């Protein structure tokens, strides 16, 4: 009986040690993956902030104004004026769709009667 207990205990210790060993490696792997992800996030952040800065730089009002003036021929953009405000009741309803007559049926029956003797 005691021998069985000893063997079982030893096996349990070996099993737990194996489990701890594996957990340790899994934790290390998870941590290093976290590090990688962190560094990816940081790089993405940096890239995003550079892109944002570039977007702001390319959309600076001076440049947009110059571009609008350069491309006036095609775009015809002018500063917003007060008369360009519209009211909702100035917008017309869409015209009612016109029904298309595709298969007309001739209904003038009078001629037919005349032809009969």
């Amino acid at each position, binding site marked *: 009986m005691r021998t069985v207990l000893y063997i079982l205990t030893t096996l349990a210790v070996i099993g737990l040690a194996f489990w701890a060993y594996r957990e340790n490696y899994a934790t290390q792997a998870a941590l290093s993956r976290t590090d990688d992800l962190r560094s990816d996030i940081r790089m993405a*952040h940096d890239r995003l902030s550079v892109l*944002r800065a570039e*977007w702001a730089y390319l959309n600076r*009002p001076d440049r947009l104004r110059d571009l609008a003036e350069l491309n006036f021929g095609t775009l015809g953009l002018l500063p917003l*004026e*007060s008369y360009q405000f519209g009211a909702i009741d100035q917008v017309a309803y869409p015209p009612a769709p016109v029904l298309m007559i595709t298969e007309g049926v001739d209904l003038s029956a009078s001629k037919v009667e005349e032809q009969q003797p």
Partner: protein
Amino acid sequence: MIRTPLRPLARILEARASGRNPDAIERENIRIRHEQMRDAARQRAEGRLLVLGLFFVCAFAAVGARMGVMATSEPSEPRAEAAGAMIHAARADIVDRNGRLLATNFETHALYAQPPQMIDPERSATELARIFPDLDVERLKADFTGARKFLWIKRKISPEQMQAVHEIGDPGLLFGPRDMRLYPNGTLAAHVLGGASYGKEGVSAAEVIGVAGVEKYFDGYLRDPANGNSPLTLSLDLTIQAASERVLRGGMKMMNAKGATSVLMDVHTGEVISVVSLPTFDPNDRPRPMVQGDASDSPLFNRAVQGVYELGSVFKIFTAVQAMDLGLVNADTMIDTSGPMKVGGFSIGEFRNKNYGTISVSDVIVHSSNRGTGRLAIQVGAERQQSFLKSLGFFEATPFEIVEAATGKPLLPKRWTELSAVTVSYGHGLSTSPMHLAAGYAAIANGGFAVKPTLLKQDAPHLGQRVMSDAAARSARDMLRKVVTSGTASFGEVEGYSVGGKTGTADKPKKSGGYYEDKVIATFATMFPTTDPKYVLIVTLDEPVETSGDKPRRTAGWTAVPVAAEMIRRIAPLLGLRPAIEPVALEDIKLTSN
């Protein structure tokens, strides 16, 4: 354990036989038993003390060991906690009210040299001078071959320049990462943003610190790593700021002015939507402050908050509105504006020595009569005038959130005599900045509540204490409207926006005392639409001259007003204001039946 009986029969019998007292045996046994009990208790107590002592030794040893480990080990980023990712080390961005970037960071590199590691210092120096033409070859050579172990070469370099330096291939030329403050819109809102520079510099990082404007005012907030992801939201609107700057720059050129400034303020919240001061500068490359000459000639000078001048007739409306608020007059009360008028030994004159005769209070404002306003001020009295102007914020520097605002302290008369009251009533003797004036006009525009100008976006109206009655404010607005429809600001009419305002032309003071004959500050203080004012706009031109006529014209009606009108024409649609057909004043109903 075998208990020893207290009275062992054998010894008792023996004692009795020998005639001794048997009780002595019992006492002796009791004593021995007590001693045994005492020894046992002491031993247990000592054992407990030992355990407790061991526990404390272990605990302190653990704390000490942990401290030792922490002190000697390299700090490492906490890797297992998820919250660590939220900390963003860079300086926070600055954005406008719609979230568009005004200031952000950009990663660049700094170039430094370690001469002891250099292979060919002479060639490196020549090559460097070829890449950066502003470097001095001889000095570089002297530095590289001398005793120096370390020197900075360039604070910020572009990726192209970095590549070129890489291609020199000298191991003694090294790069350190640098966060650079970038203002993508260039000169836009330069005076508000101010600029940034480096504080403490190390090889691997440098501190970015604000040197002026909002960057310096909110330096603590912007530098706090906890705010790295929450940008500072200003009340400025990028589009409107750009349009205002363009119109004002054009106006300044056309009117041959030396400088110009404009302030656009929301009258309910005190938010400044755009503030322009010309000439301007590029905060990416902030010029050095001038060390001699007049500070106001420097582009760094922020005219909107630092330009403290006597602003002239724009102040007249404050006198009128106070007189109406106190119930001394109403808009139709007749005032004698004929001369001569002497106060404290000085005679008060009119513009070009005109004489308007007896006119209503409304016409005093419309014609901008000095004597008329002066007489109103005498009725109001110096004391009440002072407290009224104080409540509008004319006695202190504006609380506008840029560091320069604190230097724009108004200049007040030393003693507030009756003469001061009269001159202040038409805007002389009290010097203020355009920002003060905007706050004052905002109080009239919003129906009588004091307003504090602010640069931060507000979510709800911030009305201060009531400084005048709604009725007085409304009459004042009608007067300001009349100034545009039939008074000195006739060029200020913008169709659909019911502009009301007051012009002011003040002679510039000489450094040596007295006033210049041909240098003026022309101001137009305006609000729109007067039917339900939403915005106040102040336009000030420094030394404008309008030369289209036979004689040069300098009055605000010819210079500042057309510029302000053009500005309103441009920005009112951008502010989302629809043009409105003004309600026509109803004719009085007359009973005609007999």
